[in-house]
């Protein structure tokens, strides 16, 4: 377990961890040995010579002092290791999450990752801080006591020792029996977590659909499954706990019987028997706590395994020797890409020379967004290649690639915080003037002027406190501020009224002059000024050319153009 823990958090924690374990073991042994002193003390007291007890008592006191000091330092060391590991672990997990391919993030991940990063990590790292010391004490102290017993009377010692394999066996069986129910319970927990998040975020449509909590069965099912799983876990844990208790109690009873027998037979002094029975009581308590600690340890172990699994998920493969792209043209070379069984792009070729503005038009679902996502390497192509500056995106380091690309996504996401914070995310080091310029080009200046908070207006989680068009303008400003040579724009003005839309496109044109721009748009007036228009349908490019050319050709693009101008005739 510790080995896996160390693999998960990193080797650098091995030394402090070993030191902590050594300290804890020493503490537990000292505790066990200290009880050995009970025997001479009691022998003196019960034997009618209390004065003889004094020196032993002093020794006992000294041992208690040593125990106290050791215990303090081992606890402290556990806490230290625990917190530093916690910190290191958060960073490791965060960095790794940011490196995982977008494809890993499906709708259910929110629940899983939030359980993992919240309670899970704390539980896993709590091993060092909270669980290790009691666990080691519960194992080592009884063993030491048994050794002490053996030293004083081998028969009673052996009787106590007989319990050890049984305890080990029951613990192992319990662990095996619980593994399945524990895993199920956890699965249910994060399912429910994801459902709760969905339930909260979907409140508007749920309410408008008349779905209250009682009528939203998906959530209720998930909650009920949690309850069922927790019932199963509780029931599954009972046999193990009972078995352990039974073993320990049988040991105690055996010692009681054996002690009585030996004492009656005169084979051993009464004082020794009684002292050993007191020792046996000391032995039983920590063993009984094993069931509880074992359960917690198993939970932590499972959590560590899950962390391990996530951390071992392959991030996007990185090139061994990253190459620098030469220039900023884009090229799709016979690209085929699939989402599962669905072929989204098939053998698509398109080249966007450096500094040109290319518009991609096509029916929704044609694969336009996917095309842009492939440039940013959110996914890797199945066949063919996507090249930036003549270099395959897979041969460019992620960091180098991302620094060249500014994207505005179709579904805007803003982080809770102010407008300014969100815009500055584009380039944290930008000057105020640059931020203002990007805002002006995106027509965000008008919004900032209008909102009471101005630049400091809170956007809410995901951007929920802004109107759709305001949110889009923040995300456009964010991308413009980034000032990257390649700009990808995916239906970025869909929520804007025509006037703002035209202004934003002019702003983009002005600020992005000389950049390589690929934009997807449905309102064809905004694309007619592009250098080149590609019509995407069924995963291929079916028409290419500039606006006038395509209109003249009278093909799919011309159909679109006409449809966009025609009113729907009503009967």
């Amino acid at each position, binding site marked *: 377990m510790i080995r896996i823990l160390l693999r998960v958090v990193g080797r650098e924690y091995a030394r402090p961890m070993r030191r902590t374990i050594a300290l804890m073991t020493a503490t537990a042994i000292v505790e066990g040995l200290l*009880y050995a002193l*009970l025997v001479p003390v009691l022998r003196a007291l019960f034997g009618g010579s209390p*004065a003889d007890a004094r020196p032993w008592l002093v020794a006992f006191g000294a041992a208690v002092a040593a*125990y106290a000091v050791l*215990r303090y330092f081992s606890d402290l060391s556990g806490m230290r290791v625990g917190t530093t590991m916690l*910190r290191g672990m*958060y960073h490791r997990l*965060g960095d790794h*999450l*940011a490196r995982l391919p977008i494809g890993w993030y499906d709708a259910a991940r*929110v629940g899983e990752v*939030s359980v993992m*990063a919240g309670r899970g990590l704390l539980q896993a790292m709590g091993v060092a801080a909270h669980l290790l010391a009691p666990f080691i004490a519960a194992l080592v102290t009884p063993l030491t006591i048994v050794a002490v017993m053996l030293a004083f009377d081998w028969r009673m010692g052996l009787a106590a020792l007989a319990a050890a394999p049984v305890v080990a066996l029951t613990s192992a069986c319990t662990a095996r029996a619980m593994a399945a129910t524990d895993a199920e319970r956890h699965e249910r927990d994060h399912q429910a977590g994801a459902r*709760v*998040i969905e339930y909260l975020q979907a409140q*508007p*449509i749920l309410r*408008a659909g*008349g*779905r209250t909590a*009682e009528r939203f069965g998906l959530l*209720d099912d998930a909650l*009920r499954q949690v309850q069922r799983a*927790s019932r199963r876990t509780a029931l599954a*844990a*009972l046999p193990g706990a*009972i078995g352990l208790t039974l073993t320990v109690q049988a040991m105690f*009873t055996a010692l009681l019987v054996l*002690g009585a027998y030996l*004492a009656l037979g005169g084979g051993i002094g*009464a004082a020794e028997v*009684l002292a050993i*029975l*007191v020792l046996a009581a000391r032995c039983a308590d920590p063993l009984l706590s094993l069931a509880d600690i074992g359960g917690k340890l198993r939970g932590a172990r499972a959590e560590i395994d899950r962390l391990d699994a996530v951390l071992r998920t392959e991030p996007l493969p990185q090139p061994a020797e990253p190459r620098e792209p030469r220039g900023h043209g884009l090229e799709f070379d016979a690209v085929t890409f699939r*989402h*599962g069984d669905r072929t989204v792009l098939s053998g698509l070729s398109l080249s966007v020379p450096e500094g040109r503005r290319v518009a991609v038009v096509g029916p929704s*679902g044609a694969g336009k967004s996917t095309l842009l996502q492939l440039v940013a390497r959110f996914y890797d192509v199945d066949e063919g290649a996507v090249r930036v500056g003549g270099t395959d995106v897979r041969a460019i380091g992620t960091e180098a*690639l991302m620094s060249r690309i500014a*994207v505005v*996504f179709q579904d805007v996401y803003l*982080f809770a915080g102010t407008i300014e914070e969100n815009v500055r*995310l584009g380039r944290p080091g930008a000057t105020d003037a640059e931020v203002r310029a990007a805002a002006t080009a995106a027509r965000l200046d008008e919004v900032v002027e*209008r909102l009471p908070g101005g630049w400091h207006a809170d956007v*809410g989680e995901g951007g*929920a*406190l802004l109107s*759709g*068009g305001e949110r*889009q*303008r923040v995300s456009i400003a964010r991308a413009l501020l980034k000032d990257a040579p390649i700009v990808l724009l995916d239906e970025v003005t869909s*929520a804007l009224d*025509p006037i703002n839309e035209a*202004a934003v496109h*002019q702003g983009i044109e002005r600020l992005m002059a000389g950049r390589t721009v690929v934009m997807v748009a*449905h309102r064809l007036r905004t694309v007619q*000024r592009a250098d080149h228009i590609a019509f995407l349908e069924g995963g291929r490019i079916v028409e290419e050319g500039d606006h006038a050319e395509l209109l003249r050709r009278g093909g799919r693009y011309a159909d679109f153009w006409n449809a*966009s101008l025609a*009113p*729907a005739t009503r*009967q």
Partner: protein
Amino acid sequence: MSAIDSAEAAVPRTPSPDESPVAGQSMARLLRPHARSFAAVVVLQVIGAIAGLLPLLAVVELGRVLLSPGPADTGRVWAEVIVGAAGLLVRLAFTAASSGIGHLVDGQVQLTFRRHLAARLGRVPIGWLSRRRTGELAKVVGQDVSAVHPFIAHAPGELVSAFVVPLVSLVYLLSIDWRLTLITLIPVALAIAHVPLLMLPARAREQEEFDAAMGRIADSVVEFVQGIAVVKAFGGGERAHRAFRTAADDFVAVFSRWVRGMSLVAAGMQLALSPPFVLLVVLIGGTALISGGGLAPADLLPFLLLGLGLTAPVAALGHGFDDLQAARRAVGRIKEVSEVPPLPEPTAPAVPHGHRVEFQGVRFGYDDDREVLRGIDLALEPGTVTALVGPSGSGKSTLVRLLPRFFDPTGGSVRIGGVDLRDLPTRELYRMVSFVFQDVRLLRASVTDNIALAVPDAAPEDVVRAARQAGVHDRILALPRGYDTVIGEEAALSGGEAQRIALARALLADTPVLVLDEATSFADPQTEHAIRRALAAPAGDRTILVIAHRLETVADADTVVLLDDGVITDQGPPAELLARDGSFAAFWRSHRSAIGDPDSAPPGGKPR
């Protein structure tokens, strides 16, 4: 038929939270049905704990017999051994039963609490919800309810035995020797002396900070995962989103501060309660008394055995103290959520006549310092299409959000069929109006369930018809399992496809009033055209309100309403408005000139 709904019949309705104004009471009410089980847990635990004393007493008696001068009474020795063994068995049976029942009740209570919270959150005003963070609220429903666990499964039994067991032992020990009893109590007293240190205001503050920091992590994780595309594109490539790192660092800092603050106190307390220390105290006291001849050596034995028992429950309490504190704070947060007053339901529901929608002098602002709607007067006549246009941020979506009562106007009123929405029961309201909101949201459920959200018992043919009307039927058939495909798990949809599912959802509801907020913004021109046609055709008696930006869409409407900065600046049939040359005509022209469109003739009624 739908999975979303299957639970409805099976779930015993949680009593409506509206019935009790005070959430504390309602929590007590939630617990009441389990009172008997609680009692059973406590009684079993106490009996078990007391039976646990028997083996120790057996050793004590054994000691007396063995240490008494003369030959030992064999019969008594074995009798004691049997009593001890029997005590162990009783303890085993009773504590196991208590813990089993405790955990079962615990699971049920947690379910009850979660259902209660979910029901509450389904009724709190949307405005309250939009200002809270999802991660934090989800944590209340998940983790915080779990944190109540020790309160339910362990604390009652442990608490009671923590008092009863020492009391029994104490009486017994006092009957043997009161001086040594007092000495034995020294460690307990020392430990209890530490308790106030654990409850210092500074400690409480640290604990609150701890919880707050944990909440921030939960929030940032939700954002991290949901905004992963942005994290990747702007987060500096390899580095985690800063908010997450900051939240994590904060948390660790608070955590170590908390741990440091606690560690000395906790160490002191733990040492005082540790068996070595207790034994030391008892032995010193015992030796002194025995040396002075005031105590029979055999009488030391019960103190060595039961003396530890005196501290064990206190130790358990101390051990569970953090948990209990955490549970208390969790209960506080649970209460806070359940105390948010829900949107009031009408006391005397009125019956609407028809479904004419009227806004009368409507004023509304999200914050006190800015009004978003400043006096809106508007009527939507049955059988007509009204188009709402205006610059982004002018309040169009806000106006629409008043209809489902996500917010109530601060001035004026919104009426349907002559009835103020506030006098209309919510269920009745949702039977009359359906929406496609600007922010499309699909549930992680099958396509059918997503479309039939508002009409769970819809026939499959109806679902298909709605999908056809919305132009998404063919795409659905191409999904791995057609209409049974679970969106977000088995397949994802493009923005335009998702929008059309949302549209099908609203069409299926087939309500007399239909509101579309930029419902075709991601649609390509042909799809958009087809949808416009579908909507325009069987208008019948239906009231339709569309928010749209493409002026061609607008030109089809019966009435156009131009909203600018929260007021209506122009209103009327599109052709008339253009002819009248008011603010709508200006809007239209500036749009054309902004685009630099050579073909600037207005479409619609006007000839080219």
